């Protein structure tokens, strides 16, 4: 069972990654941590280069490329048309080519269950972060219900990291924390409850929650405690 502490460890390792190869290790640790068979990240950059990190067999990745499956794969086709994460079962597998693709995939060890997160980066960048496993429908639904938010965030953080390695990349336009976000984290850090912080900042708790959510994402954190720790270690707030 995953714990926030373990996930934080993965994010720290992701942060510290300096090479593309390092990302492969992160993908493997995600599988181990969540107890799933496969995880993968795939991005085609503006120059047409593929970035793929994943745990599928070499035979399958080769097969996928040789057969040019991106043109058939319902996961790719489906995710390209939407912003929201999708359970593979909800995609259109009705065409003959899709069914043949599915058969080939399962023969190559791809799980019968899957969940994919489409990621839109700057300048029309599109990437896909997927997890896959072999299990009953019910177990998979439970897994997704328990972990989808963490997976969504991890997918986006992974993409953020992958973008750092793009050649000729424009300098990072890091999103700074707003004064409001800094105030909120500082007050939470010194032990105020959300209600107290909201009152102190003269905003409603709902507004505060949006600030916190946004700050968490900017800091690459999974939860508020983690976000405060990161803000402190980056010297953004002083407690």
């Amino acid at each position, binding site marked *: 069972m995953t714990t926030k502490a373990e996930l934080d460890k993965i994010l720290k390792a992701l942060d510290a990654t300096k090479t593309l190869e390092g990302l492969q290790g992160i993908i493997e640790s995600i599988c181990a941590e969540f107890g799933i068979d496969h995880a993968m990240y795939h991005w085609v950059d503006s120059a047409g280069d593929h970035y793929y990190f994943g745990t599928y067999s070499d035979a399958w990745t080769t097969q996928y490329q040789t057969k040019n499956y991106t043109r058939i794969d319902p996961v790719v086709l489906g995710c390209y*048309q*939407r*912003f*929201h*994460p999708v359970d593979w079962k909800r995609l259109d597998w009705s065409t003959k080519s899709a069914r043949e693709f599915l058969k080939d995939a399962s023969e190559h060890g791809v799980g019968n269950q899957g969940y994919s997160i489409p*990621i*839109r980066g700057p300048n029309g960048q599109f990437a896909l972060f997927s997890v896959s496993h072999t299990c009953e429908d019910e177990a998979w639904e439970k897994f997704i219900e328990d972990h*989808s*938010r963490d997976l*969504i*965030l991890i997918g*986006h953080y992974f993409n953020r990291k992958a973008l750092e390695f793009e050649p000729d990349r424009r300098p990072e336009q890091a*999103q*700074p*924390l*707003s*004064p*409001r*976000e800094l105030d909120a984290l500082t007050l939470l850090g010194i032990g105020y409850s959300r209600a107290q912080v*909201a009152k102190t*900042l*003269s*905003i*409603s*708790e*709902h*507004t*505060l*929650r*949006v*600030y916190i*959510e*946004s700050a*968490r*994402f*900017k800091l690459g954190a999974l939860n508020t405690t983690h976000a405060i720790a990161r803000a402190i270690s980056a010297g953004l707030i002083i407690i």
Partner: protein
Amino acid sequence: MLRYIYARELETCADLAHSMFLDRADQFKTRLGWDVQIDDAGEERDQYDALNPLYVMWEMPDGSHGGSMRFLPTTGPVMVNEVFDNLTGGNPISSPLIWECTRFCLSREAGGNVAGALTLAGLEIMRNLNIAHFAGGFDRRMVRIIAALALAPRSSGRQAQAGIKSALGCGNTMPRPITASPCAQEFPRRFRSFGLICLLGVPRPRRQCA
């Protein structure tokens, strides 16, 4: 009935889509007098309609549009960060768990149930697409409508600090029972974190609004 459709798939229901864009022109231009663009076909569209947003539409029995809303994730271009940046103090709101909700529109023919159905749709979207919060800029007049949806503002913190003219946290998580949908029972449990945030105030000088 409720329909959830990405812009890219609107061609599969061209008449309904056309009717929605006409109703948007009617609501935002004719009735509210906002500075929005109407094209030759009489449709109100803006640059965000070109970004493949997700629409929720209420389809009337005759196939026409009864009401709708538009959603985009705040990780990409959204109005709260571009048009309403005076309300956020120029500090973008961004997270895959926060989506923007804009262009809340009701047809003149819409019955009283439509706004409620759209609220239900908003909650369904939160649950099924794993979204923790909605954000959106609203005209002050919307407060009354939001209140009518039983998403009554629980507390409002109007303030002028950090460039935010006034902000209002909305979202009592308990909509009145709107339909007999089996999921309605689950809302209180699932949506304790329902957070519809409205950045109140009409941005000037552009009277464009969400």
